[in-house]
């Protein structure tokens, strides 16, 4: 089965239906008697709600109902819960303001939902919304984090967080770091902005609520990466619906990048409203609505310093970060700049002392939460910018300074000074492969060639690490998670030998229907066409935690393998009975149970049939049937790592940056489907390059999102990126049976630092040592202008 099992680059089985346009996305679902919901959102960033008069809207043609916050409160509906509690360094829990479904008392960001209008058609709902008299007393808005913390200005939540501080968190040994800096031969300092991004999944969010009065059961159809998490949060904390009366179904989902992890107001709203009006309620985000209602990503401001000895070995590192939470705490927002960011500050290096301080700040902006990489791109950007800046200051090559600081293969398992233990890795190996593929030895010649053409060529190296396979439940529980982070799988072998795999992981672009099926086909020795991957429906799959943090293969895949092991073990008992042999003498390989040393065997399908037609079966010892479930709680994070090398050419006349080449060498451990992995890397790289060069969610001082459409928010396109050269190395993960680490986010994590390092290298002759992202042509041009005496520019 090697041509379709583990390691085979087979085509994605799900693509045919997507390419033919016959997938089923949430918006493709239309229920009998369905109504349409339009949400009137705040047009301003900060205001007191003085009055909402909905009488005219309620009387408008086609209107079924108009709801405000009072209607929800009167029904006992709660606010949106936050799934992670971070504790400040003084021991105080984070400030956790209420997050109402519809704005109550105040609106706190442009896009804050205020009124829900439900009508027979969407147009009627929109027409009626124009009749709503929303009387807002506008308040000054606060957008900038430093201004928010400065005091004396607007407070987003004056009752809970009068100074806009959500938490003030630290990690690491500050005293040890200070001591390291005392002994330093050199200190490299940097001030960085990690630009705010809009996630921009190709499918906007959709939610449909349905209520069956006969059974008392609710159904929510939604664009989610983790339907069970939504069922848990919404059922238990918002709507008080017991789980057995609540089904959450996320069918085909068109991309998430993290933005579809979170429990959003619209999901609770349509679920509640469907029962209230006795009809299904459908809400579909428009693209401009996505910009102001999907949780944004990144948005850090950081000062960092790294102390080195005379040989360029890092002695210590300190990091001070402000992290924007936006106006409310989205589901997992608090953990992103802390436990997914501070814990990665060691990077690939044996830096002995590290201290990280993060202040999370409320502002009048859209909530910020996990976005592809979630904290790890921000950490990588800090570490890898420092390394390349230090290399220049110390007169070392960018690869040499990294080589001198890499954790060595014999040091694993390696305890970092920031709370995590790396299980395995070989950082020199992936960097060596990247160096070779990038023809790094001839960079100087390419720089000279570019110079002759009037261009400035630069090379940037970034050696990232990430923590995936989130995560051991007891560990994350101690760190503030309000959920476990295991995964579940059921292997249902059908009587004729086909296999249904019910997984708690959710596929929304990752290709699980192919990758997971390859694992099953490989382990059971059956044809991949005999394997069906079922996901996304809480009524069909066991309680699972969903897909994010590149966890699906490492955690969900392991649950599948563990359930398969149970299946194989039970099948062995059945086969032993059929073959009249001792169980210990039976081996399972190539899809058949064989008596060791003989040619007597039973195919897997034969055993499955006997399990369901147990005429000749050890019924006194064994239940019939062949279906097993496994819940797998990971023992540790996994730690994919690699080195990216980017070359850029800058046009000094305009500041334009062209990516001339990009090499990625990733250590993902074992790889199930190299083609899918390559695709994941490509996508991640494009997003990372998008962050480095193009994308920026810009707010003006009044809290209006200036880049609120594709006319102003620049998404990367094919022409913006080169043909990537990607390769992998492998140190298999030591603590899961597949030896896998996860690959979904790496590209987005490593690329920004590689690109910015390359631009800084290109501008080295101008003395430019930093450019903020996105490195737009004007920013690059200004950096060149600032470094060029006016006379020389003539």
């Amino acid at each position: 089965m090697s041509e379709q099992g583990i390691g085979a680059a087979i085509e994605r089985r799900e693509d045919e239906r997507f390419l033919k346009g016959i997938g089923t996305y949430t918006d493709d679902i239309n229920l009998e008697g369905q109504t349409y919901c339009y949400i009137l959102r705040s047009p301003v960033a900060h205001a007191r709600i003085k009055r909402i008069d909905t009488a005219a809207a309620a009387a408008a043609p086609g209107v079924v109902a108009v709801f405000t916050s009072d209607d929800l409160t009167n029904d006992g509906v709660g606010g949106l819960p936050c799934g992670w509690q971070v504790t400040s360094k003084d021991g105080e829990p984070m400030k956790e303001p209420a997050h109402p479904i519809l704005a109550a008392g105040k609106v706190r960001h442009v896009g804050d939902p205020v009124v829900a209008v439900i009508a027979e058609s969407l147009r009627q709902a929109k027409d009626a919304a124009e009749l709503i008299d929303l009387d807002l007393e506008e308040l000054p808005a606060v957008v900038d984090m430093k201004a928010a913390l400065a005091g004396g200005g607007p407070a987003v939540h004056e009752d809970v967080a009068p100074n806009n501080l959500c938490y003030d968190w630290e990690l690491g040994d500050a005293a040890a770091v200070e001591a390291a800096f005392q002994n330093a031969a050199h200190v490299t300092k940097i001030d960085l902005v990690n630009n705010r991004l809009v996630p921009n999944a190709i499918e906007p969010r959709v939610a449909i609520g349905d209520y069956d009065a006969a059974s008392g059961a609710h159904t929510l159809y939604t664009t989610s990466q983790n339907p069970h998490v939504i069922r848990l949060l919404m059922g238990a904390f918002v709507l008080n619906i017991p789980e057995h009366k609540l089904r959450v179904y996320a069918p085909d989902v068109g991309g998430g990048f993290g933005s579809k992890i979170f429990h959003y107001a619209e999901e609770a709203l349509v679920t509640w409203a469907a029962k209230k009006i006795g009809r299904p309620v459908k809400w579909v985000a428009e693209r401009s609505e996505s910009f102001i209602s999907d949780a944004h990503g990144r948005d850090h401001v950081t000062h960092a310093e790294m102390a080195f000895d005379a040989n360029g070995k890092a002695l210590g590192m300190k990091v001070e970060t402000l992290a924007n939470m936006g106006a409310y705490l989205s589901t997992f927002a608090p953990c992103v700049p802390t436990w997914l960011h501070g814990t990665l500050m060691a990077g690939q290096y044996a830096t002995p002392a590290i201290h990280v301080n993060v202040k999370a700040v409320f502002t009048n902006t859209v909530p910020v939460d996990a976005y592809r990489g979630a904290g790890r791109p921000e950490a990588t950007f800090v570490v890898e910018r420092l390394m390349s800046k230090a290399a220049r200051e110390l007169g070392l090559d960018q690869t040499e300074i990294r080589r001198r600081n890499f954790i060595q293969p014999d040091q694993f398992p390696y305890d970092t000074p920031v709370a995590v233990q790396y299980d395995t890795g070989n950082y020199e190996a992936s960097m060596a492969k990247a160096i070779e593929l990038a023809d790094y030895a001839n960079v100087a010649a390419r720089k000279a060639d570019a110079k002759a053409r009037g261009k400035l060529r630069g090379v940037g190296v970034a050696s990232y690490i990430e923590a995936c396979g989130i995560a051991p439940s007891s560990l994350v529980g101690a760190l503030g998670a309000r959920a476990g982070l295991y995964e579940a799988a059921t292997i249902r072998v059908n009587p004729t030998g086909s296999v249904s795999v019910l997984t708690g992981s959710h596929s929304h672009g990752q290709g699980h229907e192919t990758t997971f099926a390859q694992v099953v086909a490989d382990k059971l020795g059956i044809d991949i066409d005999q394997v069906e991957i079922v996901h996304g429906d809480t009524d069909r799959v066991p309680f699972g935690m969903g897909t994010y943090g590149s966890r699906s293969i490492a955690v969900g895949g392991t649950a599948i393998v563990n359930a398969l092991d149970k299946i194989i073990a039970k099948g062995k008992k059945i086969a032993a009975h059929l073959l009249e042999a001792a169980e210990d003498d039976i081996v399972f390989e190539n899809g058949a149970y064989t008596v060791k040393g003989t040619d007597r065997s039973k195919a897997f399908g034969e055993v499955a049939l006997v399990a369901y037609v147990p005429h000749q079966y050890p019924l006194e010892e064994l239940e019939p049937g062949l279906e097993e479930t496994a819940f797998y709680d990971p023992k540790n994070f996994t730690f994919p790592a690699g080195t990216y090398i980017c070359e850029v050419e800058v046009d000094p006349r305009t500041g334009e940056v062209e990516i001339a080449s990009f090499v990625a060498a990733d250590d993902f451990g074992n790889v199930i489907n190299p083609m899918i992995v390559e695709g994941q890397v490509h996508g991640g790289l494009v997003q990372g390059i998008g962050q480095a060069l193009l994308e920026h969610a810009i707010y003006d001082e009044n809290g209006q999102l200036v880049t609120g459409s594709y006319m102003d928010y620049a998404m990367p396109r094919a022409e913006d990126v080169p043909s990537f050269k990607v390769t992998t190395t492998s140190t298999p993960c030591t603590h899961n049976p597949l030896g896998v680490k996860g690959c979904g986010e790496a590209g987005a994590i490593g690329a920004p630092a590689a690109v910015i390092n390359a631009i800084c290298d290109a501008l080295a002759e101008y003395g430019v040592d930093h450019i903020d992202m996105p490195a737009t042509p004007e920013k690059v041009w200004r950096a060149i202008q600032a470094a060029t005496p006016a006379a020389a520019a003539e």
Partner: protein
Amino acid sequence: MYEFEYLRPTSLNEAAAALASSSEASLIAGGQTLIPALKQRLSRPSKLIDLGAITDLKDIRREGSHLIIGAMTPHAEVAASDVVREAIPALARLAGGIGDPQVRHRGTIGGSIANNDPSADYPAALLGLGATVVTNSREIAADDFFTGLFTTALNPGEIITAVRFPVPAKAGYAKFAQRASRYAIVGVWVAKVASGVGEVRVAVTGAGADGVFREGGLEKAFSLSATPETARGVKVGPDGLLSDIHASAEYRAALIPEMAARAIVDGWGGGG
């Protein structure tokens, strides 16, 4: 989108009559600006008069020393037209660089110039070539047509039928595109007109606070020597230029000579 009456006349007279019938009526050509405005409820016409069925308006032809392009010709057709490529190759290249493939297959030359977005490409070509806008009632010189941001010399009820371009001796265009919309941050059209002593016209789009404009300093310099080096030696100041999140006036000012230099390379060939 609000409700409106949708009309699809098959003749220009019928379209003009429909337009005259209501002060709230609106023409629609390719709809690349109007449709988004309608969808966002920013525009509320009583009638939407679609010019797409008037076949006379979709036409590309050479008449002696002029190239005539019908108002309803999509950018993609201009870009692919052998007639255009033969007469004014830079115009084909300009059309092929507007927006993205979807925009180029729906958007039209007439719609573009009637809208007169200050960052649109076509106005630079019209002004830079001294083209003539032909309407259902008169002819308007490009120098008189573009009167300000999103405003033109068109009278209420007037419909553009074609644009007539004099075929130049040489012409080139270079655009510094805004990365999201692909509109011009600065687009410079340079043309050496065929008649007389070879006057050079330079028109700049994307940069002017009042829309497309002719750049006198560059025209003067190019009349002596139309080379990239000449362009780069011309100083353009930021006064009167747009400043927004995508580019400051100072940056636009610096880009104008550089785009003029690239336009010379585009139209005159490698460096000459």
